């Protein structure tokens, strides 16, 4: 039998896990819609609360696991599992204005009190977004899910930045880590967080 690379083994694992990742994503999205309904029903005309979910795609999951290894290479003599990732299933709650975060955060925290906090700092000692990961125990004890509560402008900026920086055109490879880009990113995030 020909030698299989770690990446090939992880791809096979991913497609075995995929139906379960989808179920966890649907479950978490549905639960969060339910838990935040009391806020959504009272929104003023200019206020918004959007809920977006995603299943982490196969190559992103493998790359995320690879980024956790020093030197960003897999050890061919070791075994890895994508289930060690905290966000195979993900839900993002986007809120405008940002001050509404104060209402949504405790509601969800109460429902997911055993989930692990992984807050996103804003670079000035404050908090940019709330992030938690854990298990939807009724559905899966294997797939970790993540939910984020993010000011809408920050979340929309992340969406643009993600497609430009993490899956870049070869000509832009590495630009996301340049000091100039970090400076610009910090400026946008501090503006959007207000």
């Amino acid at each position: 039998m020909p030698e299989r690379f770690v990446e090939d083994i992880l791809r096979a694992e991913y497609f075995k896990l995929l139906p379960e990742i989808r179920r966890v994503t649907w479950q978490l999205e549905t639960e969060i819609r339910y838990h935040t309904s009391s806020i959504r029903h009272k929104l003023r005309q200019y206020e918004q609360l959007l809920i977006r979910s995603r299943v982490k795609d196969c190559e992103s999951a493998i790359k995320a696991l690879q980024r956790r290894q020093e030197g960003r290479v897999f050890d061919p003599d070791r075994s890895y599992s994508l289930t060690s990732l905290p966000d195979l299933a993900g839900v993002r709650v986007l809120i405008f204005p940002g001050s509404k975060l104060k209402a949504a955060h405790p509601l969800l925290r109460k429902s997911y009190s055993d989930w692990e906090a992984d807050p996103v700092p804003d670079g000035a000692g404050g908090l940019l977004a709330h992030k938690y990961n854990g298990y939807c125990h009724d559905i899966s004890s294997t797939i970790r899910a993540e939910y984020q509560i993010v000011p809408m402008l920050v979340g929309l900026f992340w969406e643009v930045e993600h497609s430009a920086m993490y899956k870049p055109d070869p000509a832009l490879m590495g630009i996301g880590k340049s000091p100039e880009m970090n400076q610009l990113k910090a400026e946008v995030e501090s503006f959007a967080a207000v």
Partner: protein
Amino acid sequence: MKKEILHRANYRYVFDRDMYVNRDAKKAFSLEYVQDHSEEELLQRIREAANGSNWRFYFNSEPTEGVRRELERVLG
């Protein structure tokens, strides 16, 4: 400052490995190692002699034989 030290010693940042690499000296520092060690320590490691024709990797966790093989393959 650490970046400047490495740059002056001809270490180039390899984006897809997050490592500072000097192919002539056959030495490489992981990003984690650079972040977690002082400038003085970094200078000492830069001054250390190369390991002949073998690569020398400075990691927080000593790379396994498998990781060494993979890195040597991708770094050339």
